[in-house]
Structures are given as C-alpha cells and as structure tokens.
C-alpha cells in the first residue's frame, strides 16, 4: 500500500472523522501542540543560545543540557503525540501539502544535527563545559538547530494554508 493509500485509509477511520469534525477536541489538541512548543522549543532555543554563548554564559553547558533535558524530552513527546493527532485528523490533505513535506524533511535534518552534535563535540564537553564561547563545532550545531527549528515552526504554521493544494483535496 502506498503512503497515499495509507492516508486515504486513515481518513476513513472513525477516529479521524470524529477528530476532524469535533468542535472542541481539535482546537484543544492544537493548543496542546502550541503550548508544548513553548516547553520543548523554548528550552531547546535556550540551549542553542547557550552553545552560541548568547545566554547563561556562567552556567556549565553540561549542567544546562542535563537539567533542561527532561523538560525538552517531555515537551517533545507531547509535541509529537499532539502533532500526530493533528495529522490523523486531516491525513490526505496534510500528506499532499508541500509545507508538511518541507517540515518533515527539516525535522529529520534537525534530528541528524542533534545526533551528530552528541556523537562528536559534546562527547568532549568536559573540556569546554565552562567556556562562555564554545568550540566552533558546538556553535555550528547550535546555529543550525536554531535555523532548522525556526524553519520547522514556519513550515508548520503554513500547513494550514492551501495555496498549493490540488483542487478537490481538502
């Protein structure tokens, strides 16, 4: 079954229809998505800014990362769950939407960026933990993360607009 086929099947399930047509639950899920954006992305942004030496310069990087990680992880899980529900409510249109596709690609890139950061320069964090200005590789990772997440937020907001949708799809 193709991805589109799966989306078409999803769209016909009672849960998807109920969510799509609900008066309160859909907006509620949207609100959860936006508020957890503050929790996950807010803490992630602060860590990126720390890597760039732009805030919390006297806080060791590993302490900031370690202390905020739980909140980031919890925000991320809620964000993915609420995001999946939003997709489930409108699967076919979302799947065909160009901004959704851009968002997915950017999400993968942001994940890769974080993975590379943790596998490389962050392994030696003990050597630069207290530096107000972190090594170049860490600054690049922080900058990339900021740019990617900004793009993800913008693309995410744009999914709601239908400038490029094929006629007849909704």
């Amino acid at each position, binding site marked *: 079954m193709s991805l589109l086929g799966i989306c078409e099947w999803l769209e016909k399930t009672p849960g998807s229809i109920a969510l799509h047509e609900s008066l309160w639950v859909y907006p509620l899920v949207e609100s959860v998505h*936006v508020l957890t954006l503050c929790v996950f992305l*807010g803490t992630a942004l602060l860590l990126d800014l720390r890597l760039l030496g732009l805030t919390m310069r006297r806080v060791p990087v590993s302490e900031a990362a370690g*202390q905020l990680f739980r909140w980031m992880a919890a925000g991320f899980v809620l964000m993915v769950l609420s995001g999946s529900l939003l997709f489930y409510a409108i699967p076919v249109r979302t799947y065909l939407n160009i901004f959704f596709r851009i968002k997915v690609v950017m999400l993968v890139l942001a994940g890769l960026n974080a993975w590379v950061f943790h596998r490389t320069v962050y392994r030696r964090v003990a050597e630069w933990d207290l530096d107000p200005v972190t090594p170049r590789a860490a600054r690049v990772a922080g900058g990339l993360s900021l740019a990617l997440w900004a793009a993800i937020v913008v693309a995410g907001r744009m999914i709601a607009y239908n400038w490029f949708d094929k006629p007849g799809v909704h």
Partner: protein
Amino acid sequence: MCIEEGEFRLTLLPFFEWCENSGVGHAIRDSLWLFPVIESFHLLALALIGGAVLVVDLRLLGLVLRRQPVASLAREVHPWLVGGLAVMVTSGLLLFTSEAIKCYYSDAFRTKMTFLLPAIVFTFTVRRKVATADEARVGPWWGKLVGLVSVTLWSVVGAAGRWIGFSG
C-alpha cells in the same frame, strides 16, 4: 466611545472598526502572504518567550538548575524575554489590525487580553523583584508561588491566543 438608546455605555467598537479599516489592516487582509508570515514571527517569538519565561519559572519552583542562583539566571535570560515580547507585541498588533472586528466579538481574544495585561505587569514587577532579590531574604515559598502564577498566566495567554483562530 458611544451612547446607545439613552443608556450610557462605553464601547471600544469604534476603535476596533478604525483599526480594521486602517491602511495597515487593509494591506494585511489583501495580501495572501502577509498574515501567515506575520503569524510565523508571532509563533517564533512565542517559543522564545516560552523558553525565557519557563526556565526562570521552573528555577523559581526549584525544578531545574538548582545550583544556579535565581537572580543571575533571571538577569541572563531577561534580554531574550524583552526581545521576544517586542516581536510578539509588534506582530500581534499587526495581526489584530487585520481582523479587529472579529477579535472584538471573540471570547478567546477577550480572555487573552484579560490575562495578557496581568501577565506582563506581573512579570515586570512582582516576578522581577522576587527573581532578582536575595534568595535568603525572600524565602523559597514566595519564589514557588511567583513561578506558579507566572506559568499559569502565560499558559492561558498562549492557549487563548491559539483559540482566536478557531472562533468566528
């Protein structure tokens, strides 16, 4: 302000109508891209404010970075909070101008404004005072209370804000 049928009633409706009919309001409504682009800035600033507010509130609640003094953390994050708020208010005013009449009749908008004013005042008065004060002098329970009030006020602002888009 206007007077209706013998009963004296203050209303802001004419002001909202003026906003809606302003050149800026027209320009944003007539453009396909402007509203979503401004919305995106509004959202990015939200994430920034969310982070800047949350990290200090969580610290006040004693949930993160307990080895860091509240005061230095609050001071370090403060410029980002102010910057985020500046972008937020500017983009918010622009969004509002383009759909002022809808906002006038929207319960979500009213709720948001009702909580936004106390949230801002609280953040820059009580919260700032407690966060930058000597921790030994203030006592941990005041910090916890302030953190809780702050996170609650801002959450309602955020949720009600998202809800404006669903009303009307």
